[in-house]
């Protein structure tokens, strides 16, 4: 099995205007930088993007927003981003805000063949509008449906040609969940390794969830909130 493609351009082949994409990452941590750049170049538009956040003005999904390639964002927290705010307030951009844990669970469910589940998050809030409420053990829960995507795009630390992935630190976040939920899942990795180099026992994402993989380049890995303490 060899899922390696030459790079981001080949990896995103088949992504068309109007499609739904999932993009891994939390803030700017663990985002698929190479594929986002390739999407900007490709000029696809009318995208629905499922991503916990929406990048900043000049990085991450902000780059796609600048080019008005995104029709709708499905996220839990957005707006570190002036252009996002402008488009949202002007009505150019649809925004569906979802509690973060529900977003994570809905992606995981989508990849797991679980069409819907009940969660307590959002009961009694506007998130509950139009949703079935059901009590379990006396506690109200909302019915939430699985999320899937035409393409899921994730960023990992290491990967092999079978598609097995290892993430680094908190750059894991939504990546393994979204990897499960794409009809086609693209993984860009900092380092492609030979099969067997990743310990089968500690692989985060088994290759079965990945259809295309490539070694990315020029990772900027921008830090959003640099916080440090003085050396003692």
């Amino acid at each position, binding site marked *: 099995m060899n899922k390696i493609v030459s790079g981001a351009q080949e990896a995103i082949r088949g992504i068309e205007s109007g499609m739904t994409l999932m993009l891994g990452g939390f803030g700017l941590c663990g985002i698929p930088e190479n594929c986002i750049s390739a999407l900007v170049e490709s000029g696809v538009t009318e995208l629905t993007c499922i991503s916990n956040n929406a990048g900043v003005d000049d990085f991450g999904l902000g780059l796609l927003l600048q080019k008005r390639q995104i029709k709708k964002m499905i996220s839990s*927290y957005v707006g570190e981003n002036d252009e996002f705010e402008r488009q949202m307030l002007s009505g150019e951009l649809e925004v569906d805000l979802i509690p973060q844990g529900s977003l994570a669970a809905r992606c995981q469910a989508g990849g797991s063949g679980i069409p819907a589940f009940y969660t307590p*998050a959002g009961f009694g809030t506007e998130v509950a509008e139009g949703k079935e409420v059901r009590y379990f053990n006396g506690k109200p829960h909302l019915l939430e449906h699985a999320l899937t995507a035409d393409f899921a795009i994730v960023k990992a630390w290491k990967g092999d040609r079978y598609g097995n992935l290892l993430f680094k630190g908190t*750059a894991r976040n939504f990546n393994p969940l979204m990897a499960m939920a794409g009809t086609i899942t693209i993984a860009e990795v900092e380092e492609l390794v030979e099969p067997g180099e990743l310990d089968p026992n500690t692989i985060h994402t088994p290759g079965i969830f990945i259809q295309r993989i490539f070694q990315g380049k020029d990772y900027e890995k921008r830090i959003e909130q640099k916080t440090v303490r003085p050396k003692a």
Partner: protein
Amino acid sequence: MLDKIGIAKRIAQELQDGWYVNLGIGIPTLIANYIPKGISVEFQSENGILGMGPFPFEGEEDADMINAGKQTITAMPGASIFDSATSFAMIRGQHIQLTVLGAMEVSDNGDIANWKIPGRMVKGMGGAMDLVASADNIIVAMMHTNKKGKSKLLKSCTLPLTGVQCIKKVVTNLAVLDITPDGFKLIERAPGVTVEDIKNATEGRLIIEGDIPEMKI
């Protein structure tokens, strides 16, 4: 009256040995600096880490190691890292003993509003709705009144809710209050604050029973 650090210090007194704790952005984050001596707690951040340590030294920050506030962090020995679904499994499954978060409004039946102001840019609820809907033990850390001097402890919230009947305790610059079926029950006064001050700053039902002690910070 307490400042933000005072509020953090007071809430830190609630920590118990062996607890797993999720701290929200703002005042709650400060609590990590005031863990009582002799107890051991672990901090969870909902993007996917347990056992968060202090901020890194200058030059040692790692873009792949951040907390839910997107700040660079370190990991303690015994830390573990996981995906966001597992992280919210911990939260929803009530494996976290204490959640502390900020609020714009809290009502006397335990409702909380902290994510949206109509007419203003909405940034989203992040993990707040999962946290408040799931946690058994939630403390709100906030100022007693807003910048216009209006009470944030209300009969009922005016802003869109984050969660209903979920808050158990509020620690403000003026007081510690438990939320009971009959409303806010005053537990402690901040240094130099009178019961009258607290009454004047609280719009919701307020229960005052007996002498109200002053906090020891």
